[in-house]
């Protein structure tokens, strides 16, 4: 005798209990603290803040702990929390020209005012496993650490080109940008909206899109004009006071690419720009973002649409969000008995008819 499956409730509860146990791992080992994650897995924390669109290292570390290190799951936790937060207002635009840089490099000029600052980078490390870390040794001494970050303000590399008129103008624009989290994403999306979507886009997706432009799918000859990482003050206009006050600071990664451009029907030959700005130290993402931004600008620059994925704003923006993507991908785990049943009926019917036709022909 068949009894319909019930008791989903208990199954769910049990699954959650088991999950909590697995998350903790071997209870014989010390539990990770949120502070340890924040300090020692800082790049994971940065990614969760960037793609979660919420600058809070402690919450991001908590989310990583709760998600058992699954960063997309952690980003999801942050996003879901973020939507419930009340909005008090918007900060004034941050001035990255005033950034206190920990790292600042330019690939276009050998030396630039403000200097090249390597900062804490993996760039020239040899990728050899360091077994000293496994032995939980003492932290190495930090001979290279400067006493102070580079004195702000550090001038922007693109400005040197701008003075000569060799790079496209990027005039100041005070139009309030659209808000992706409060308005539905609609096409065509202007550059501000595209940048907003890219800033929270999945790092892997953005990287692959950027990489595809380098391999010739809408190649745009990018050089890293400047990459800078450091802290900037966040200021907010307080209506009661009538002026802006500093309410804190955030670490940002900014990348501006300088792209060769031989001119088009509408634009003269000059260098053009791609732009990336991301929370935290997230330079792979910021560079990728700048390349994709530049590729998406083909229309305004009068370039040809060569049909490359990275030129297709609708394709890029509708598929860049990992929370949307993972949700829809994973939803195929949900029961689909009903649609599957109707497909089953259909396939049986088609087979039956094909069989009958064959028999009639014989």
């Amino acid at each position, binding site marked *: 005798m068949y009894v319909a499956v019930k008791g989903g409730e208990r199954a769910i509860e049990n699954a959650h209990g088991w999950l909590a146990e697995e998350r903790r791992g071997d209870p014989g080992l010390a539990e990770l603290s949120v502070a340890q994650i924040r300090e020692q897995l800082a790049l994971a924390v940065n990614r969760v803040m960037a793609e979660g669109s919420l600058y809070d290292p402690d919450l991001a570390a908590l989310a990583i702990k709760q998600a058992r290190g699954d960063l997309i799951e952690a980003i999801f936790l942050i996003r879901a929390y973020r939507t419930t937060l009340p909005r008090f207002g918007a900060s004034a635009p941050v001035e990255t020209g005033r950034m206190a840089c920990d790292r600042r490099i330019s690939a276009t000029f050998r030396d630039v005012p403000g200097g090249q600052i390597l900062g804490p980078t993996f760039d020239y490390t040899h990728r050899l496993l360091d077994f000293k870390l496994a032995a939980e040794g003492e932290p190495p001494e930090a001979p290279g650490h400067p006493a102070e970050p580079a004195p702000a303000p550090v001038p922007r590399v693109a400005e040197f080109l701008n003075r000569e008129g060799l790079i496209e103008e990027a005039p100041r624009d005070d139009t309030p940008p659209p808000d992706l989290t409060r308005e539905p994403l609609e096409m065509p999306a202007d550059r501000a909206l595209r940048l907003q979507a890219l800033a929270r886009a999945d790092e892997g997706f953005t990287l692959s899109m950027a990489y595809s432009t380098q391999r010739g799918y809408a190649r745009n000859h990018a050089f890293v004009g400047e990459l800078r990482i450091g802290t900037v003050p966040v200021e907010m206009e307080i209506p009661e006071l009538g002026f802006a006050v500093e309410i804190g600071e955030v670490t940002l990664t900014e990348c501006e690419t300088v792209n060769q451009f031989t001119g088009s029907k509408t634009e003269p030959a000059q260098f053009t720009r791609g732009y990336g700005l991301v929370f935290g130290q997230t330079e792979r993402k910021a560079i990728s973002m700048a390349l994709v931004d530049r590729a998406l600008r083909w229309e305004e620059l009068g370039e040809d649409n060569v049909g490359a994925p990275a030129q297709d704003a609708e394709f890029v923006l509708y598929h860049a969000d990992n929370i949307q993507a993972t949700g829809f991908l*994973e939803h195929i785990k949900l029961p689909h*008995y*009903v649609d599957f*049943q*109707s497909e089953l009926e259909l396939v049986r019917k088609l087979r039956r008819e094909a069989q009958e036709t064959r028999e009639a022909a014989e």
Partner: protein
Amino acid sequence: MTDYNFAYLDEQTKRMIRRALLKALAIPGYQVPFASREMPMPYGWGTGGVQVSAAVLTPEDRFKVIDQGADGTTNAVSIRAFFERTAGVATTTATHEASVIQTRHRIPEAPLREGQILVYQVPIPEPLRFLEPRESETRKMHELEEYGLMHVKLYEDIARHGHIATSYAYPVKVEGRYVMDPSPIPKFDNPKLSNSPAIQLFGAGREQRIYALPPYCEVVSLDFEDHPFEPSKADHPCGLCGATDSYLDEVIVDDAGGRMFVCSDTDYCDTRQAAGYRGKDAA
């Protein structure tokens, strides 16, 4: 959960969704863009339906959630628990008792009545999506009523298979104007969309669209005059309650290919069994 507002969403967001709902009801079948919020459940798992339910629920409501027609499927349980926790509303599994019913992939068998609201979870709201992937182009096609392509698809089905090979998410035309995706309900359910006394609301969270059918709205399944639309289901009575008019799930009962067919709408089946109806597989 006291930190959260009634039914989770803040009032501002609910108002935004209600405005979208009103617009959707005023233009039946038209997809209204709305600023879908991130919900504490994944996109694709009913966030659109959940947001619509959150916007229409009042403390006096009685809420029912079904997935594949059943109240007991895991995701239905999870969504019901979410609203029990965040809204504290009364819940029920009885279709006739519920004032708001959130559903995935089915329309209840028991006829709905005036005053009830049926909320559908929608994965892909655009009926033209698999013919034309571009949103900018499909919006234009709706705007200009360029639906020839939709019939080309049906034509191709008949040319190849002898009949229309769409068995669920079967496209419909609403009030002679907009072509609409009824969500992945089996085409067996399509006739129930039309002329229903209940309000039908459709929420697609990830795709940021809301659309609606006001009560007593005319909904026609697309077809050809000489190949008319046919709602279909497995050609069996329910093994448990003997119903011949309900949509059936096929259940595999042993390793030897044994199978039985039971109502997908568990409330309908339970109600019939309680009234003494028995199918051939019932104890």
